[in-house]
């Protein structure tokens, strides 16, 4: 897969970071506004997919992107599991919200829910990115 023309490249250069920031905003405000880990994670994956599509699969270092996305996916899953186990370590149940709730309607509130959102976002984004790389990037799959 070759890259596209200079116009597409220039625009996607500017937009990819903005899309990443928007996805992060959706994840971090998941407990206050619509959105959350699922939506934000997919948006972050979309920002990387935009770069891959516009610059072409030959441009990216495929091996290291696979390694990165697997590391992030495992990290997300591990973080979610640790957050769930925190309640068990504190002497209550699995998935207890033990961190203080904070003031409502503020960004830093709701205990473990924002952290769990971040974990879910990392997991979903990295997982979908590696699925996309496997489906669309060329070298990994076939040598026709």
């Amino acid at each position, binding site marked *: 897969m070759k890259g596209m023309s200079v116009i597409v490249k220039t625009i996607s250069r500017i937009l990819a970071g903005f899309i990443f920031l928007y996805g992060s905003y959706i994840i971090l405000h998941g407990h206050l506004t619509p959105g*959350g880990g*699922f939506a934000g994670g*997919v948006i972050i994956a979309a920002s990387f997919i935009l770069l891959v599509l516009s610059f072409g699969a030959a441009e990216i270092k495929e091996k290291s992107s696979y390694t990165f996305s697997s590391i992030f996916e495992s990290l997300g899953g591990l973080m979610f599991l640790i957050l769930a186990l925190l309640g068990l370590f504190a002497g209550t149940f699995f998935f207890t919200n033990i961190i203080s709730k904070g003031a409502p*309607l503020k960004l830093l509130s709701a205990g473990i829910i924002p952290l769990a959102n971040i974990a879910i976002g990392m997991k979903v984004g990295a*997982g*979908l990115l590696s*699925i996309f790389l*496997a*489906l669309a990037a060329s070298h990994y799959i076939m040598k026709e």
Partner: protein
Amino acid sequence: MIPFIGCILLIVIGLYGIITKRNLIKIAIGFCMVEYGVNLLFAFIGFKKDALAPIITSPNSPLNFVDPIPQALVLTAIVIGLGTTAVMLSLIIRIYQKYKTLDINEIRKLKG
């Protein structure tokens, strides 16, 4: 009642694609249709007339919300649907590489 019947019709259209079509990608699209129909049916069951989305905007606002539980169930189902679709598509790519066709009758003949 009519929106529910619309969802059922979408599920039946997906079923039609799965059963009668012989192209593998059409079958995958049929599975997606069934998934959309089920998700939409869930969201419609939770709808309440003249109610708001389940998000508290200020501490003293009235709690007249639509049912949040179907939404929470469907939210995970949508992402899982994308994952299963991806597995289906990767299988389709492999089948095409091996048999050079997407027609299931041809594949059945070429098997072995």
